[in-house]
């Protein structure tokens, strides 16, 4: 194999990759930043399907912002089961928010039952 063939191989290696899970994670992050939580959720779900462990965590965080607390709690539990290492303190905060919101209706119904 000649030197030019090796250079060509190296160039091909440096060429931009086709859209990967990380591309969708980035798109999801942008959408989340812009407040488009539905779009962010779709992007994170796609990343999740493409094998990204982070995708599940961030999809659950998007569900929190969409007010779907119970789905978010379930999402966080699934994400933890799939990859416990792929989260950080901020995701723990969103998880706590989801737990609190999911608990709220139960508390209020308990209050009304007491009256």
């Amino acid at each position: 194999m000649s030197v030019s063939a090796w250079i060509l191989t190296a160039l091909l290696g440096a060429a931009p990759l086709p859209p990967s899970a990380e591309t969708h994670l980035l798109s999801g992050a942008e959408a989340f930043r812009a407040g488009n939580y539905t779009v962010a959720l779709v992007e994170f779900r796609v990343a999740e399907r493409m094998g990204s462990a982070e995708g599940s965590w961030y999809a659950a965080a998007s569900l929190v912002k969409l007010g779907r607390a119970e789905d978010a709690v379930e999402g966080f539990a699934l994400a933890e089961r799939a990859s416990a290492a792929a989260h950080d303190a901020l995701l723990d905060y969103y998880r706590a928010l989801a737990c609190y919101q999911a608990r709220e209706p139960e508390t209020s119904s308990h209050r009304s039952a007491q009256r």
Partner: protein
Amino acid sequence: MKRRAALLLVLPLAGAARAEDLSSRTRLALHQALDLHATEPVGSPSLPQTLTPQGGVPGMSAATAAQATQAASKAQTEAANQAAQDVANGHGHGNGNGNGNGNGNDANDASRDAAGQKRGAEAKETGGKGLSGHPDKPGKPPH
């Protein structure tokens, strides 16, 4: 041969470094996005009942509410007194019992006493029935 070996070694390393770089960039973007919206309220906040003002008009201060209560109480007492006066004068029964606050009870008793005394005096004049303010019971004959 040496060059080929070097390229074989460098290419995977370069690829790995590029992947690592993208990953940290993605992680940073994700972290920043979540951090940006972390403190925003989600949905409608449900305040506990104890935090909401109990009774009264919203926006009314405690002093204004107390003043309004005092005024209402005064009006109720006045109405009770008026009713007692009417009963004493024989203009009707009135309704001065002042539901709830008990402000009208004294006035009601007073009106009853006054009515009884009046009836007693009338009975005395006519020489008929009692002195005690109970017109239905037979009174003692005058000595």
